[in-house]
């Protein structure tokens, strides 16, 4: 099973760009990379998902290098409301019946005024 490593915490200021990198050295050929956001007292919420190269949506961008052993979530011009925990997941149900989603502790992002 692919294991992920990401920083425990990050600090930023309003208006800055934030990049959170996740390492996943054992990623399998068919594994997707998915990022979730969790606010206090709420369930995680899907942000973005990618397989290779770059993916962008209205919330974030996801950069995946050619070897796919890491990925970087980029949040442009963060605001106070982006303060949350961000989780990187590798693999999914499509990987087969033995797949167990592993959220880890995630990265706690604090955005300061």
């Amino acid at each position, binding site marked *: 099973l692919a294991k992920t490593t990401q920083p425990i915490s990050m600090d930023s200021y309003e208006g800055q760009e934030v990049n959170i990198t996740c390492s996943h050295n054992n990623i399998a*050929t*068919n*594994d*997707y990379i*998915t990022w*979730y956001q969790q606010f206090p*007292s*709420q*369930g*995680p*919420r*899907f942000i973005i*998902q990618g*397989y290779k190269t770059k993916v962008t949506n209205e919330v974030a961008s996801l950069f995946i290098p050619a070897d796919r052993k890491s990925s970087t979530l980029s949040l442009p011009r963060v605001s106070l409301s982006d303060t949350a925990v961000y*989780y990187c997941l590798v693999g*999914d*149900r*499509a990987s087969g*019946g033995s797949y*167990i*989603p*592993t*959220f*880890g*502790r*995630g990265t706690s992002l604090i955005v300061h005024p």
Partner: protein
Amino acid sequence: NAGVTQTPKFRILKIGQSMTLQCTQDMNHNYMYWYRQDPGMGLKLIYYSVGAGITDKGEVPNGYNVSRSTTEDFPLRLELAAPSQTSVYFCASSYLHRDRGLPYRETQYFGPGTRLLVL
């Protein structure tokens, strides 16, 4: 669509009591999951289901049971509550989808959680 709903929102149990946490989704998703989240920690998978009538253990199944008689419902049962089961419980559902030329992928949708305190 209501998405994934969970009841109750909060519950206090005495040691040894039993209860069922309810989870319902209206998105016709095949896959459903139960997680627990302890303070300051990530989510740990308790049980999951790949369809009605099929369930399997996750990372931390001891002390819990599940059933999946319909696509919509995936209740989690605590038979003999213990203080170690004090946690926030999240239910999620998902489905597989695929873009042309790429592998299948999955997106999980989570409920609002049930906060359980065992005293």
